[in-house]
């Protein structure tokens, strides 16, 4: 049987580009397909990453760093806030440039990239998946490959077509809205998080500095909570109250699957990476670095699989992911479940307790200990993270 490529990657976000990069550097002939006309745009994200997360993959470059942050502020429902001391630093990215650079790294390793290429079905022969059906610049094209890597994001359908249930439960899906605002006066080295039933039930609202008086302001709330009031309404109310004079430069919608990793991420010759696999930290909703880690492992294992000609080897991806981050996300998920049950009074109590800790000792751990007073069973979940 003749194949056009060894591996097709569907989606050119951070997970897809990283998968394509490592698959290509592993010796495979790789094609990456992106449905939008450009890589990295539109940006549907809070854009924050940690330094140690990002340097695993790419050297920090001022051209995709909007600001460097060293602190974050947690704001309780009553308006009191606490600024825990942090080790290390993080970045607020310019995702449109960052994603583009990641795609370039894949291309440098030999992966081909096609944009405005919409995958609308899997290509089958004798019941076996042998490629994808795609519209490339509106022209129907069938492309054959041995392995398909689905990096098609929160709206993933490739997995479903392969027989994997990737539907995210509405309790775990965060419905998101985000704006870029200009005329915001804030410290440019601090990430701000707002909590509470009136601000963002079952999630949080963020204000991230992007330099030059601009900020990425967004909200993610549980779809369960959004039944009563939508994300954009919560966000608009907050912005009207807090930044009445700010100018809105962009506004955009989004969704984040804050769940455990999908129970199945490999089936036959199809694997899922990134948001498509629900490889998101369920507490923070951060999925850039974890998606890239999923992409890296997926790309490497896919290339090995092609080389060995043994599809069973793809299962190694699921094993390695579980060992690397999957188990952690399971515990984070339990923590999320506990925290999302906290109401305003509890959150205010936690903030008050944290403020009583001497400032130099006010670490995230300290705040967490304050939270434990309200939910002692959390300790079991945290213990698991450190014991294993």
């Amino acid at each position, binding site marked *: 049987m003749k194949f056009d490529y060894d591996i097709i990657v569907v989606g050119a976000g951070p997970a897809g580009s990283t998968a394509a990069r490592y698959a290509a550097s592993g010796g495979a002939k790789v094609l990456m397909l992106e449905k939008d006309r450009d890589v990295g745009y539109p940006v549907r994200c809070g854009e924050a990453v940690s330094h140690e997360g990002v340097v695993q993959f790419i050297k920090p470059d001022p051209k995709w760093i909007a600001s460097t942050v060293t602190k974050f502020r947690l704001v309780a429902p009553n308006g009191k806030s606490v600024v825990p001391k942090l080790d290390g630093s993080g970045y607020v990215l310019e995702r449109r440039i960052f994603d583009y650079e990641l795609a370039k790294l894949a291309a440098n390793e030999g992966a081909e990239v096609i944009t405005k290429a919409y995958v609308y079905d899997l290509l089958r022969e004798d019941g076996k998946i042998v490629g994808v059906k795609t519209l490339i610049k509106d022209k129907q094209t069938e492309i054959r490959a041995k392995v398909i890597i689905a990096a098609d994001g929160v709206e993933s359908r490739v997995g479903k077509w392969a027989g994997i249930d990737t539907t995210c439960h509405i309790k775990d*899906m965060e419905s998101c809205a985000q704006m870029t605002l200009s005329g915001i006066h804030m410290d440019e080295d601090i990430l701000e998080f707002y909590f509470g039933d009136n601000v963002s039930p079952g999630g949080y609202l963020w204000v991230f500095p992007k330099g030059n008086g601009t900020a990425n302001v967004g909200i993610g709330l549980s779809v369960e909570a959004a039944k009563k009031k939508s994300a954009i309404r919560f966000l608009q109310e907050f912005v009207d109250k807090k930044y009445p004079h700010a100018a809105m430069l962009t506004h955009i919608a989004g969704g984040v699957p804050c769940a455990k990793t999908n129970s199945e991420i490999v089936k036959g010759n199809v694997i899922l990476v990134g948001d498509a696999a629900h490889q998101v930290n369920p507490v923070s909703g951060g999925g850039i670095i974890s998606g890239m880690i999923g992409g890296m492992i997926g790309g490497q294992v896919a290339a090995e699989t092609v080389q060995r000609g043994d599809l069973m080897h793809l299962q190694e991806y699921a094993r390695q992911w579980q060992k690397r981050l999957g188990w952690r996300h399971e515990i984070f998920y339990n923590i999320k479940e506990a925290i999302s049950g906290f109401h305003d009074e509890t959150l205010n109590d936690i903030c008050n307790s944290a403020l009583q800790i001497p400032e130099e000792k006010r670490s995230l751990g300290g705040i967490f200990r304050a939270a434990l007073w309200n939910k002692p069973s959390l300790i079991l979940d945290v213990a698991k993270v450190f014991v294993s």
Partner: protein
Amino acid sequence: MPLPHLMIHIVPGKCDFCGCCVGVCPEDAIELMESKIAIIEDRCTNCRKCVWACPWEVIEFHREGVGHLPTHMPQMINEPTAY
């Protein structure tokens, strides 16, 4: 089981194509391209999860069905040629 009628309506011109609705749809009943979206009518069960998930209130539920809506354009997309 075929539906008596579709009750889910995507308000034309308002969608941001973020995919949050697709992520919660248990029936794979939403087709989403770069800047096109449609409900696949013969798969939709009117479960409303997409309505709740939409961050921008673009997807509406009409108990009496969407056929009479002046803005409703019937679209059934299973074949790519329909684009």
